[in-house]
Structure formats: C-alpha cells, structure tokens
C-alpha cells in the first residue's frame, strides 16, 4: 500500500498487529471515543514521566514511559468509606479514632491480593502516622479537599478510574491501579501518545518541556502538597509501564507538529491566566489540531496532489443535514 520511500520503520517495532491502517496513515494508533480532556490528561501523564527521567534520543529504539499507580492515595480518596463512619461515630473515643480507622482500612485494603507490595506488610498506611501526627480530623480535612479536585465529577465514573486536576507531579497517575491484570486502557487510549509524539518531534520541544514543567508540575502548589502527604513515597510505589513508538519522518505533517507546539506554547506563556485555568483551553485547541492533522495525513495518503491545498475548516452549515457535510468534505478532498 505504501510506496517504498514512505515505508516507516515503525512497523517492525509494533509486535503482532493485525491491522496497521491507522499506523500507516497517522503514524500511530489512536483510540476512538477518547474524550478530548482525556487525551491531554494522558499527554500530561506521559510528560510527567518523561520530564522526570528523560529517555535516550534514539530514533530507532522504541520508547516507553511509566506512571506511578498511587494506589494507596486513590484508595483513600475514592474507595474508603470507613473514615466518614469513624469520624461520625460517637461511641469511639477521639483518641482511639485513628487506630480504629487504621484497622478497618487495612482489613479492606489488604484483603485483595494484588494490593500487597510486600508479603509481611500488616499496615499499608503506616506512612500517614508521621505525616498527620495521627490526627484524624487533619486527615479528613486533607482528603475532603483533595477529593473535591476530581476532574469531570458529574460523570460519576468507577472508583478505580477517577482523575484529579493536574496541579503538581503527585496529582497525576496511571490509568489503572493495578487491579486489572492486563494494562488498563480504559481512558488512556493512545490519543495522548500521539499528541506527546507530535509535540516531542516539533522544533520548540525544549521550550515546551520547560513551560509544562513550570505550569503543570510545580511541586509547591497547595494541592500537590496535600496529594504528596497522602501518597506513600515514590520509591515504594508501583509503576505501570507503557510502550510508545515514534511518529514517522514525514514532510507534510511536520507543519502539524509545529503548529500544535506553537498553540501549546502560546497558551502556556499566558501569564495572566493562572495555572489551573490552562487545562480546558489546552485540550480544546489540541482537539482542533488533531482533527487538522488527521485530515492532512489522510490527504497525503491519498497522494493526489504534490502540494495539497489547505484544508478549510467548516464552521457552520446553513442547512445542517449530514448529506451536505459529507458532500462538502468530499469536494475538498477530491
């Protein structure tokens, strides 16, 4: 299907794929129905991994990234009913509440086998003792505040798949929490990987890295400090690994990479916009950029033009029937 000079070395590195259509056209697979904000969340997750330990710049080798699972923090935030019960229970003396709660939560947590990090671990939440000085109301306050920073709360997702607003390195974690045996791809469906790859191969890569680190991964934000207090040390935490490849060397879509990077940089450079306001405009502009990239890649694959005409973006149709939309799309491509 592809002419010889466009053969991408990527294909050898993706093991045992039956269908390689998306990889051929767009350079990477993307999951349909991944919501735009999930795409950028995934991208930021990849950045959190890459910025902390940069991989080698070998274009031939496949690359991978790993994300912390932060199971214990997530358990505290989304799975634990005992804290509320213990706090409200008047029969338990205040000085005993911490101990009682610890017992209950450990029972539930350690009951599931995959939660064991070490076989001899009796108290999975021992790290909280020192951090909170065994003060249960302080712990409750911290959990209450951090829990309210959940993204897209109204959707009421399953407890294992809730995400927090990215306000520091401790607020981002893997898509799965180790419960499933195979790697979770519930929400991180590779859309973020494409965005990361595009940004990483753009010409403003260095500036972008710096800005993302400054705006999204500042460890001193109050929310990050709370998250850090609630999670165990990174050294003790488990990680999930993923592999991503790289986008092929192409002439046309390089514009697309630089375009996306430019948009990101412009937004990140907006100093009047506080850090927590960046997420929404970022994912919206990313969505638009992805659509343009897919269309251009499709155009190139059809290879009808030596220099394809610029793609119009239809903003409004006076007669909104699908037939007209398809007609307009066909006319522009052919």
């Amino acid at each position: 299907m592809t002419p010889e000079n466009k053969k991408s070395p990527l294909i050898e590195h993706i093991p045992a794929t039956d269908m390689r259509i998306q990889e051929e056209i767009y350079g990477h697979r993307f999951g349909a129905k991944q919501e735009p904000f999930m795409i950028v969340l995934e991208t930021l997750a990849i950045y959190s991994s890459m910025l902390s330990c940069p991989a080698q710049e070998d274009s031939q080798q496949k690359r991978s990234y790993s994300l912390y699972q932060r199971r214990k923090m997530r358990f505290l935030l989304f799975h634990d009913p005992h804290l509320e019960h213990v706090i409200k229970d008047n029969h338990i003396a205040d000085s005993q509440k911490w101990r009682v709660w610890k017992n209950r939560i450990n029972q539930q947590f350690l009951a599931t086998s995959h939660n064991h990090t070490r076989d001899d671990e009796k108290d999975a939440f021992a790290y909280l003792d020192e951090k909170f000085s065994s003060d249960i109301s302080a712990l409750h306050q911290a959990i209450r505040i951090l829990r309210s920073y959940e993204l897209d709360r109204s959707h009421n997702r399953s407890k294992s798949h809730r995400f927090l607003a990215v306000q520091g390195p401790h607020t981002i974690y893997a898509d799965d929490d180790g419960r499933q045996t195979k790697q979770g791809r519930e929400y991180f469906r590779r859309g973020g990987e494409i965005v990361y790859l595009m940004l990483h191969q753009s010409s403003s890569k260095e500036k972008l890295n710096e800005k993302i680190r400054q705006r999204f991964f500042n460890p001193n934000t109050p929310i990050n400090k709370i998250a850090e207090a609630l999670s165990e040390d990174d050294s003790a935490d488990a990680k999930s690994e993923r592999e991503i490849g790289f986008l092929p060397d192409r002439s046309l879509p390089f514009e697309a990479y630089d375009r996306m990077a430019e948009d990101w940089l412009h937004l990140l450079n907006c100093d009047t916009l506080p850090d927590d306001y960046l997420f929404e405009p970022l994912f919206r502009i990313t969505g638009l950029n992805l659509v343009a990239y897919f269309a251009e890649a499709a155009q190139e694959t059809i290879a009808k033009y030596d220099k394809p005409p610029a793609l119009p973006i239809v903003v409004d149709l006076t007669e909104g029937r699908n037939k007209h939309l398809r007609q307009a799309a066909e006319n522009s491509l052919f």
Partner: protein
Amino acid sequence: MKWTEKVVEQLKQLWADDLSTAEIGRRLNMTKNAVVGKAHRLGLSSRPSPIQKTTEAKPLTPTTPQKTTISEKTQAIQHNTMTKSNPLIPFLASYGPTSSSNTMYDECVIKAAKDYGCTPLDIEIPLIDDIVTMLQKPSPKSVILTGTAGDGKTYTVRKIVEKLSNNNNTLTNEKTYHFPHSLPSSRRPLYIIKDLSELDNKDKKRIFSELCNALTQHDDDVPVFIICANDGCLLQFFKDYAPLYDKIINLISNNQDNKEEPQTCFWLINMARQPRQNILDQVIDKIVEHPQWDKCPPICPAYTNNKSEKRCPILCNRDILQQKGDNSMRARLRDIVCLAELSEEHLPIRQIIIGIINILLGDHKPNSSLLTCKKAQNRTDKNEYSLTNPYANAFGDNLPQREQKRYKIFTILNDFQIGFESNNFFEYALLWGNEKLPDCFYYGSRIFEKSRQQYLRDPTTEHAEYFLHDMIVQRRRLFFSLAPNNENCHANPWQLSRFKYGAEYLDLFNELFKSNTRTTQKKSDKFKSIARQVLCGLNRVMTQTMTATNSELWITTSSSVYRGNPTPLLIQRAQQRADSQSVLSFTSLNNTLKTPVIHVTQKDHSIDLVLKPFLFECLLRIAHGALPASFLSNIHQDIEKFQRQVTAITQKNFDHIPPKEVQLSSSGELQERAITILEEEVDF
C-alpha cells in the same frame, strides 16, 4: 334590460328632470353605470354632480398638510380658531415616531415648525456656547462633532449658526454651508458640513485636501470647518490620510477632551458622551410647557378642565407628564434612562423626544399611531380612553410590532418587563381593590372596572384574557404612580419590573455620584446597608455557601477544574479599612455618569468589578435567598473573572501564606480553618 326606443325616451325625460343617475337607474331597472354610459353616448348635456351641489366646501384642516400647498396651509392656520384644532399638535407629532424621524430629523422638524407656526423645541446644550465662544477667539479651531444618530449634532450646528449671526441666518440644507460672514476675531471663513455621509466621491475629491489642511495646519488663512459625522463614517472618510486617521481613532477610543491641546488644530466632541444630567426633565418641560398650548381653541368640546368626565386625552396625558415628585411618571422615566445609561445602552436625545411624544399622542386604534385633534375629540366622545393610555404608549404599544422594534426607546423600556412582574400585594390590590393605591381618573378604574367585574363574575377563558391584558396595563400605571420609598415595602413599584432592586441600585449610584474622591465624606446608613447586601451576595457566590457574612469580602480560589466542583479555599479577606492588606472600596464618581465599581486594592494593584444594573440585581437576589445557579452564566463569568484576577495577584503577593478551608458557623458567618497538613509544613 335593453335600451329600446321607449327606454331611451324615458331616460331623456328623467335626465331633463335633473334626477341623479342612480335614481334614473332604479326607475329604469338599469345600473347607474349603464345610465351614465348611455347618456354619454347619446350626448346628453352634462350636469354638475349632485354631491357638489348639496354640501358646503370642507374646511381645510392643518392635520392633512401634505395634500395642500403652503399658502393653503397658512390659510388653514389662520382659520384654526374657527376649526377645533391646535396647530401645536401636528407640529409635535412631527417629532414623534413617524417614518421620517430616522433620517433628516432636524430638517424635518424645522420645516414642520415653519408650516405650523410653532417655535421649535429648544433644548439647552451648554456645549453650544462653548463652541461659539471658541469660534469668536483670535485663533479658533475646527470642530468635529461625532456620535450616534439622534445625539443632536445637526441641532447643535444649527444653533451655532443662529448664535453666531444673532439669529439673522440659519443653517440651510446644502451639503457644505458657507457661513455668510467671516469669524469676528480671526477673519477666517467658516464652512459647515452637516453630514459627512452626504458627500459623494466628487464632493470629497473637491474638498479633501482643503479639509485635511484645515485639520492639520496651524495656519491663519485656512478656513474653519465644523463637521458632523458618526464615528464609522468619520474614519471611513479619512482612512486614506494616516496622520488624521490615527489621531481620530485615538481620541475616540480614549474619550479624551482635546479642546485645550495646543498641537491639534481641531476639537473632537463625542456627542454621545456629553454629560446630560437633566435631559429627561428638560425634554418633558419643553414639550408640556410649550407656549403654544394656549392655542387650544375654547370651542373644542374636549377642552374641559381636569376634573370633568370628558376631557381631551392629549390634555390628560399632558397633565400626567406635568406631575413632578417621586411618585410621578417623570421620576420613573428618569430612573429608567439612568439605568439604561449605566447598563451602557446609550439613549440619544432623539429617542427620548420620540418616547415623550408617543406618551403624549399615542393612539392604539388600528391604522393610527398618533392622535390628531380630530381623533382626540372622537375618543373623548366615545369614551375610548383605553386607546390613548399613556402608560401603554410609553412602551410603544400603539405602534405595529415592526415599528416598535425600530426605536431604541421602546426596546429599552420593554426590556424592563414592566407590568409582567408582580407580587402578591399588587395582585390582590388590583383584583379586590385597595384604597391606599392611587387611582387615575381617566386611566385607572375607569378603563379597568369592566373587565375586572366581568372576570370576577365569570372567570372563563375569554374574560380571563381581557382581564389579564388589562392587568398588565394597570400594573404599568402603578409603576409610574408610586414612590419607591413608602412605608409599605411591598408597594415598591420596582417589584412590578425585572429590576426588583432598582431603587437600591439608584440609591447606591446617587450616593457615589455625589461623593468626591478628594473629600472623605461619611457614607450614609442607606449606602452601608446596600453595600453589605452586595458583599453578602458576592461572598455567597465566591464561597458557594449561603453565608451571612457581609462586612468583608472573602477572596477564595476560583475553580476551573473541568466539570468539577472543587471546594473554595480562602486566600485573603478584603476589608473596607484603609489599613488592611486588601482594601475593598467603592469608587467615587465625582458627578460623572459612570457605572459604580468595586475595587480590591493590594499594594499597587487594583482589580475592578463593574457593578452593572443586571449584575447588581443578581447579587442582591442571591443575598436575599436566590441560588447562584439560577442565573445566567454571563453573571458567573463576570464574577469568576474578578475572582480569578484577585486570586492571581493575591497569590503573587502573598504566596508564602497557605490557603485556608472555609466553613460556615451555625449563625451563618464564614469561618476560616487552617489546613493542618499545609500549616505543619510551613512550620518546618
């Protein structure tokens, strides 16, 4: 029937008898037209029409001016004492909502003034004297008058011409008017272009270089120009000449007054931004106290005193407009114009005049918009006062929908939804009667009683429809007849409109208007009470609790978590004391008509929240119990923007202080609670 010999003979006979063709037709069993045709073909002598013979010549009334020539019109005017009409009425009607009132308004009314022998309305604009004085100085500047349609540009230049020439000359209709004399001190010629958009390309080519010269060179020989144009037209005209273009854009967007600037050769005046405190009162007074009201002929049957059963509706409406005081129509109209200005809906003078004339002369009969003397007599006769109701005319109800939408005054008044809001007190009072509420002799129970009784007896759908319509009219009447600050708080007329807290807003505005930045006057108790309500509403929105805290502003982190609902964390409290770290204040307006603004100042930075009427209304409703989520997202966006900006500078200035959790005490006051885990870290 056929024209037989016999029938023709009969026709000739009847024709000679001088019977009408209709009668002949009836007798011969023919149509009138057949008779006429046959007579013509027969060549019978034509006879004068019987209609002309029997009635006398109709009097020429000044109410149909367009069908007669000028001399006949002046004749008619001289006859007005014989006829039952006052020429003032059609003259005033020319100021009203007619099709010609959009373009060439000033020219139109001057012509009407001449035709009806009335003096034109003379609104005082202090600017006119300023310009005339400037023109009479040794080095006068050219003047550019800009603004929207209806702001008084043509009127101003006309007055300037009259003043400069001591009323010997007046502005003509030429595109470029050359003032007959040179200016007194400087001896320079004066040219007036009364509408720049009237100049076509040829004219423009002719005068462009001379005009640019006059506006850019400090030369004693160049003529002085006075130009009237709206902003867009002005910029379009000079778009090819960069220095002027840039200068003009600068002046317009910064709203500066460049009268005293020595380096510019022209004075740009934006008529839309001129201070006009008493414009509504002036307009009303000039109309209702026009000297020619005494020309109402005594023989007019409707010219009775104001307690009689049958009085001319125009005079009734004039009585209503003449009332002053806090419970008058004039007062509420003044309030509405003020609120519109503060919502940044500028009302040009023309629109105000149109509105007042419509109140005075509006007529709700189909195919009729304004009253004439004859129509007024008719309405009086048939007791049809519901058709001339000024309280409905104020909203343009007498005009067809299409016409109504063309005039900004009606759009703005309708926006207030007066008559469509109410409360239990008013509904009960209107349904069952209440002596404490004011009644109007002509427009109150007189036009309301019938449908009310009908409805009470039999509330079927049909009666209900009429009744509901009449209720709206009565609510509108009450809005214009009650004072806001009476003993019964439920009888506040603003409750009948969308702006239930309209009175509070105007009180706040008036207090700030009078206050001066230089003098620190003590604020009145009323002001403090209103300020507390505003703060309460803001706190409720910003902390997402139904708090009662109203003495300080709690600055909290605003949330921008995508579709999330993070708990607001307190960053700082802004107080109204000058020594606090964040100072909360209301700006003094120093007698300028500007929207009130709340400031939060920290060190050198200051963030503003513009309190437009709509935002104020929402905040006060929230302070009195409405939920913030029940309002439009624009309001949230305005407050969120303010919150975000304040949070940003606070965090920058005080970033070593960790945020606090916000809690509500049992009495409803906000309390801060330290976030233990963050405080502990700081202690390290």
